[in-house]
């Protein structure tokens, strides 16, 4: 009896493995062929001039930079705690509000013949970033202490996730009642006025590379490089990497798990706050709900790159941003369906490479 079962299951197992590989091949080749067909079609019968492609790419890079920053926050926390920090988008929202209030205050503050905001724009932007990141860091720190730390050793892996959902609902509704549900607009200093920038004109069309866009992309890249160096070179970075590889051994090596976790939340809060202020400066419009959509997108980006992997999150965010803005034009479909394309890309990538773009195949996992 036992023998038949064994003999019965074994070949099925093998078949299945083969079938999955077949599936991958089919999906991969057909996607490739389709892309090739679209590219040829685009060359033969272009629907958009080159300047518009530049425009799509520009939008994608800026949005992608913000996704990347938020995604790194997810990935860091996931690496250390194996937790999907559902309230991460709301931490970003708090940072966005803090930056808004800083700008409003500085605009109200007189200095010389005009406001402090316009007389010292660089200083003002710096203040906004300090306030935004500060508020986000604090809220991330306390969130971890109150809602996640008691659950860290729980056997139910999903308990912290539901706790995070509760925290997210709490933060969102609190912000709504405190500040009102009206959509607010950032008051930028004149130096970084929204919409102003460098015109690029090409055969009839024209697009503008905006100052705010360049600023946020540069900010995002600088912060990402700084973070990468930080995680690779400093002692705290090393302990974060150690913890995300093996909690037990890391503790045995004398790493204080509580402290590393807190500090991870501080870093991820910093990045979320920075992206919140960037969102405000570049896009302007925001309210209590601002963190929800970017949060989900950034989470998707983190998985796309291989969750727990910092370069993966960076690349994932960029890829997602570019796919969202270039994808619909490339495939010639409605822009309403850009999220469909984004998620379809995600599913495709995971079918072809089940642990994300940069993730190592499960088993010996090297996170972060």
């Amino acid at each position, binding site marked *: 009896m036992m023998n038949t079962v064994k003999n019965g299951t074994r070949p099925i197992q093998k078949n299945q493995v083969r079938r999955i590989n077949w599936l991958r091949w089919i999906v991969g080749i057909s996607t490739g062929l389709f892309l090739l067909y679209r590219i040829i079609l685009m060359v033969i019968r272009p629907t958009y001039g080159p300047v518009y492609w530049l425009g799509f790419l520009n939008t994608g890079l800026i949005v992608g930079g913000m996704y990347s920053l938020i995604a790194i926050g997810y990935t860091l926390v996931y690496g250390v705690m194996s937790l999907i920090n559902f309230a991460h988008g709301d931490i970003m929202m708090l940072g966005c509000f803090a930056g808004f209030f800083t700008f409003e205050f500085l605009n109200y503050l007189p200095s010389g013949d005009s406001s402090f905001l316009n007389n010292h724009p660089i200083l003002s932007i710096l203040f906004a970033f300090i306030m935004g990141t500060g508020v986000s860091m604090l809220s991330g720190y306390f969130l971890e202490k109150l809602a996640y730390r008691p659950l860290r050793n729980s056997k139910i892996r999903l308990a912290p996730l539901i706790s995070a959902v509760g925290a997210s609902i709490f933060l969102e509704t609190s912000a*709504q009642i405190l500040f*009102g549900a009206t959509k607010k607009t950032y008051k930028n200093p004149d130096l970084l006025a*929204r919409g102003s920038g460098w015109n690029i004109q090409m055969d009839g069309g024209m697009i503008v590379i905006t100052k705010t866009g360049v600023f946020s992309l540069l900010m995002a890249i600088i912060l990402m490089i700084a973070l990468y160096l930080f995680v690779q070179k400093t002692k705290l970075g090393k302990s974060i990497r150690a913890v995300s590889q093996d909690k037990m051994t890391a503790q045995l090596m004398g790493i204080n798990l509580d402290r590393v976790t807190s500090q991870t939340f501080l870093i991820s809060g910093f990045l979320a706050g920075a992206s919140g202020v960037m969102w405000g400066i570049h896009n302007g419009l925001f309210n209590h709900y601002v963190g929800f*959509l970017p949060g989900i997108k950034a989470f998707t980006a983190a998985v796309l790159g291989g969750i727990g992997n910092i370069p993966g999150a960076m690349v994932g965010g960029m890829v997602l941003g570019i796919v969202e803005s270039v994808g619909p034009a490339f495939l010639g479909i409605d*822009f309403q369906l850009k999220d469909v394309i984004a998620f379809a890309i995600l599913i495709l990538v995971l079918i072809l490479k089940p642990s994300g773009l940069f993730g190592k195949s499960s088993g010996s996992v090297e996170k972060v």
Partner: protein
Amino acid sequence: MKKSIFFVLCVLLLTSVLTVGAADMSRCDADGGCAVIEPGNTIKIGMAGPITGEYAMYGADISDAMKISIDELAPLDGFEWELLAEDTLGSAEAAVSVANKWITDESLVAVAGNVLTGESAAVIPIFEGASIPMLSPSATGANLTEDNAVFNRVVFQDAAQGKFAAEFIVNQLGLTKVAVLHDGLDYGKGIADVVRDTLISLGVEPVAYEALTPGEADYTAVLTAIASKSPEIIYYGGYTAELSVVANQLSQVGMAGVPVFSDDGAFGSEFIEKAGANAEGCYGTSSIPADSPEKIAFDQKYEEVLGRVAGSKSSFAWFAYDVIKALSTVISETAFLGDDGNLYVPRAEMVNNVRNLSGFQGITGEITCNEVGECNASGPTFYIVTDGAWVVAN
């Protein structure tokens, strides 16, 4: 002798009073019976909408404006008015719960809502079963008033303003390269669809028909796609916040100077404030008469009570104010005082009377309901931003 006459008179008087009373009470035998308000209780008008959550700005603003309106009402036969503002988070699921809660309340007479189209569609069958009339200040979805007797609204149905707007663009402005953009929600898409269809029937094929995702705030990708078709005008169906971003980002994709034509959901001073110089030359739609004394009085009161300018949170505050006023008028006409001191409002009559409401003068113009419950009788007026202010466009 005198005593007997007195006695007879007394009996006569008593019977007459009783018969009058009995005749009154027969009005409650119709379908749905009567709403009963006992002495000390209040006449209740319900308002359900998203007071928290993603669409909180609409629900919260409408309930605030309604509170202002209901506080102004004088007691009816000694009965005070009360607004029951309930939160639905904008979901049909919670709206159904709220509706079922209300139909068990004997003193709830009418519903000033719902706020969003989706939730309204979900609760109409419930209120129809209980014969409770609805008068919505904001649900504009295309086919809401079809095949039911209870749902009415004071805002434009999408069809009317969309058709007029498309005709205005083609006939008055003489433009032929039109791009249509909407926010993918029931309100914006409803209007945009009508605009597109009317344009096609006028022989003008829209050069682009696209939708954006509200909640994100970088629409340059979709605008680039529209820019590549180089339209002369963009029709936008949606709300103020997104419209202002669209207007601001037009110049980033090389469409500076291309006007945006928008609906009444996006009309108001808020747009000019948010879009600044980029708003110049854009068209808007509104049915609200410019600055009648009542409207100015309401605007002042609104700012005093709530600390913000009317129209800054949503464009429905004025409609919300009028809805309560109109409903209270109908209730006052329909209600009668029973012998037991209770106030009775016959529900079936109430439904009819709201549907037959005519000639009510509110701050949003004349409210006269037609046979399907579209109550905004004044036609749309188109405005254009000139020198930072809305001016009637010709």
